[in-house]
């Protein structure tokens, strides 16, 4: 009967479904088991290799895995990378080279766009499914350590980091490496970087100064006068009152088009922790110097020296004012000439805006210090479940070798074969473990002007030889190298960073520990409050006396508690 047939068919279908489910389940388990078994097998040789000689030879550290092993990571994909045919973030010359040279097959457990990386990391942590190693932020590291999800690297670091790597990671005296420790145990590899990158520089239109017969600024008072003149004396000569002094964006404490440099002229450091005369560490954003600086900004806003709409503009939107000859002054880091200034300064192969580079001046006779952080941009953690944690150190060692050897270009060329053949930065974009030289800008700042003056690039390291060529191209008439020229010329932005360091004008954030308990609870609220009150005062939406009320509020909303915790932490470390 047809009915009976149908019944059987249905029953069969269900059984089939059930079996498929069971199969896939069993398959998964089996794979896992195999993975563990093979891992155990391949781990034992390396252990027996390491055990007889505890102080292993440098050659042993970098021994090639045979057969190759696999380690997983999470990749951040830079959207500007253009791949060669057949290449991708999962298969490229950098990954291929590690497999050939070290027997390490890097596998991306996931790969997301750079802008989504941090959110993806948080999801990965929440789902407790870490790749063998990945790059995380400070707060993530803290949580991973508390949740006991990452490996203690103290011994691995001792054993598998080459002396060269150790020297590289502790080049600042050890503070950067110490920041990755919890209870004296090393829980991550810090991505060391130069702390000087966000240091503030004042950029002013020299052609406008000339037109209005003004002198280059020596004091903060000069800066204020220039700002006033730019807003009122028609520096672009078009007969309309359409110019302002200082350009700003809505994130007023951002490093580009922000106010950090401005505040530093008043010895005010919002966003940073500072050591006061009493030896206590206090939050910079509630000090009386901030009030003075805000009062001045309010006056400038009222006088039309600031953009009336800066509070709704993000950094690229506010940059339009600089590009279109509407604003003549801006604070920013050393890379401002490359972006956004070059966009307006270079038109049709000619330099049409003349931007000057100035050290941030002071309101009094004390020099204005530039607040900087520790210089660690993030941390590499290794999952507790990783089978080959030492492989991460091999990758790290290899990268440090490439960075520090006399002729790094050799490595760069080797790793960049295939991928982006003509673009040596492939290596810097794709390498799964990245740490940077903390003195890169200072070195360039010291050496580049000398080399340019002597017309002799032989004294430079390889990275700067490329920079030197770019500057030469600019001097030969290639205006597209404007950014390089402004960064490295005598009196350029990187030489200024070197000058700051020679004059001792860096102020390191006094607190670089993990977020304290109350900070985790309240910091977001306090920051929102700070932004709200500061912006209101600057835009004349509130009297400057509102600042005193804010300071009281800041303390009662958890700020006092946080200050206490910060000082306790500093005392304990």
């Amino acid at each position, binding site marked *: 009967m047809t009915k009976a047939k*149908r*019944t059987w068919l*249905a*029953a069969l*279908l*269900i059984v089939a*479904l*059930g079996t498929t489910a069971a199969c896939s389940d069993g398959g998964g388990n089996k794979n896992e088991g195999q993975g563990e078994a093979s891992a155990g097998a391949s781990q034992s040789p390396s252990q027996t290799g390491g055990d007889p000689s505890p102080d292993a030879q440098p050659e042993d550290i970098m021994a090639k895995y045979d057969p190759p092993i696999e380690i997983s990571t999470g990749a951040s994909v830079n959207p500007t990378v253009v791949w060669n045919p057949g290449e991708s973030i999962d298969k490229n010359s950098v990954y291929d080279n590690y497999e050939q040279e070290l027997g390490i097959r890097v596998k991306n457990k996931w790969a997301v766009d750079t802008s989504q990386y941090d*959110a993806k990391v*948080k999801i990965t*942590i*929440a*789902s*407790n499914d870490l790749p063998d190693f990945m790059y995380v932020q400070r*707060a*993530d590291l803290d*949580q991973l350590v*508390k*949740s*006991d*999800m990452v490996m203690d690297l103290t011994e691995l670091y001792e054993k598998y980091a080459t002396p060269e790597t150790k020297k590289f990671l502790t080049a600042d005296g050890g503070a950067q490496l110490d920041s990755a420790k919890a209870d004296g145990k090393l829980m991550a590899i810090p991505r060391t970087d130069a702390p000087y990158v966000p240091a503030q520089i004042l950029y002013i239109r020299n052609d406008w100064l000339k037109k209005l017969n003004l002198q280059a600024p020596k004091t903060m008072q000069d800066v204020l006068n220039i700002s006033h003149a730019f807003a009122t004396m028609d520096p672009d000569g078009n007969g309309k009152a359409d110019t302002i002094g200082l350009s700003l964006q*809505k994130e*007023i404490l951002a490093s580009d088009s922000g106010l950090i440099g401005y505040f530093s002229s008043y010895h005010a450091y919002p966003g940073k922790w500072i050591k006061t005369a009493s030896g206590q560490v206090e939050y910079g954003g509630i000090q009386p110097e901030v009030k003075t600086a805000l009062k001045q900004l309010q006056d400038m806003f009222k006088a039309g020296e600031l953009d*009336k*709409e800066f*509070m*709704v*503009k993000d950094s690229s*939107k506010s940059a339009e004012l600089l590009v279109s000859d509407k604003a003549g002054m801006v604070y920013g880091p050393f890379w401002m000439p490359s972006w956004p200034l070059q966009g307006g300064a270079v038109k049709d192969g000619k330099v049409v805006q003349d931007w000057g580079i100035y050290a941030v001046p002071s309101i009094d006779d004390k020099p204005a210090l530039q607040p900087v952080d520790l210089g660690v941009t993030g941390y590499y953690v290794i999952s507790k479940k990783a089978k080959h944690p030492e492989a991460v150190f091999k990758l790290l060692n290899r990268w440090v070798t490439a960075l520090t050897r006399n002729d790094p270009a050799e490595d760069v060329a080797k790793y960049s074969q295939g991928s982006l053949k003509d673009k040596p930065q492939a290596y810097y974009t794709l390498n799964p473990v990245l740490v940077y030289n903390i003195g890169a800008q200072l070195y360039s700042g010291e050496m580049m002007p000398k080399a340019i003056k002597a017309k002799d690039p032989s004294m430079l390291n390889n990275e700067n030889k490329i920079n030197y060529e770019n500057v030469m191209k600019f001097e030969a008439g290639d205006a597209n190298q404007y950014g390089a020229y402004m960064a490295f010329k005598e009196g350029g932005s990187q030489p200024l960073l070197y000058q700051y360091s020679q004059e001792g004008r860096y102020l390191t954030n006094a607190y670089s520990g993990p*977020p304290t308990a109350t900070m*985790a*609870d309240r*910091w*977001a*609220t306090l920051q*929102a409050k700070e*932004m*709200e009150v*500061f*912006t*209101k005062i600057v*835009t004349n*939406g509130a009297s400057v006396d509102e600042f005193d009320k804010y300071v009281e509020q800041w303390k009662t*909303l958890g700020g006092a508690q946080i200050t206490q915790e910060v000082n306790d932490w500093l005392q304990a470390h």
Partner: protein
Amino acid sequence: MKASRWKNQWPLHLMIWPAVALLFVYSYVPIAGALFMAFQKFNPAKGVFASPWVGLDNFRYIFSMPDMGRVLFNTVYIASMKIVAGLLVPIAFALMLNEVRVAAVKRTFQTLVYLPHFLSWVILSGILIDILSPSEGIVNKAIAGIGLQPVFFLTDNRWFPFVLVTSDVWKEFGYATIIYLAALTSINPALYEAAEIDGASRWKRTIYVSLPGMAPIIVLMAALSLGNVLNAGFEQIFNLYNALVYESGDVIDTLVYRIGLEQAQYSVATAVGLFKSLVSMFFIVISYGLAYRFANYRLF
């Protein structure tokens, strides 16, 4: 009788089980997980079963946050205005469009008002900042043209909520209009003809034929939208707000974004989500009751 039905139908019952199992594993288990998380101090390594329980601590923390009162008020205020305007505008527009007799014009308008629905708020916020700019924007040029002072739409706390509501309605009303137009086409043409013979004007026909014909759909849309009373629109506000309008624009979702995602406090974010779901459920039950009573509407 019953037994023989079971005998005939048991394979069908058996066949539904895989679907039920899938739904249970992928929809109901996560709900339970989220329920647990809201009452725990969630630790990813331990998972939802072993993380320590903290009772109502997460909820106490949320309501002890200094700006919670302001944030709650803003959320309800902005969301209710959006619900009301989001209901009335498309109904009115659908009725007007329905009266247009030239099919080409009708279609063109329908497509044009539908278009903004496909743009993301990231793009629209850039456009809005430009057209609402006090110095350069076209809106303020028009305002200046009739001799008034420029309005700071995006930085003035009195204006900001209305900018949010207006721009949201502008973006979304084309989508809702389509639903009401569909409801209108399902009205029996005989009713219009009968009304016409009885001497009803166009206006009277709209009031006494079109609107009652649409009523079930209107009630359904209203009932569904009441569940949104705590959804003020994260994407829109996040892209448009700034420090000056935190006072009138900071809503639950932006607050949760700042504490939950930027500071990785998963449990707190889950607790807020649970709170929002409970309030939404409360309103949906109430509105369903009202719909049942006044429009004789039954969902089940």
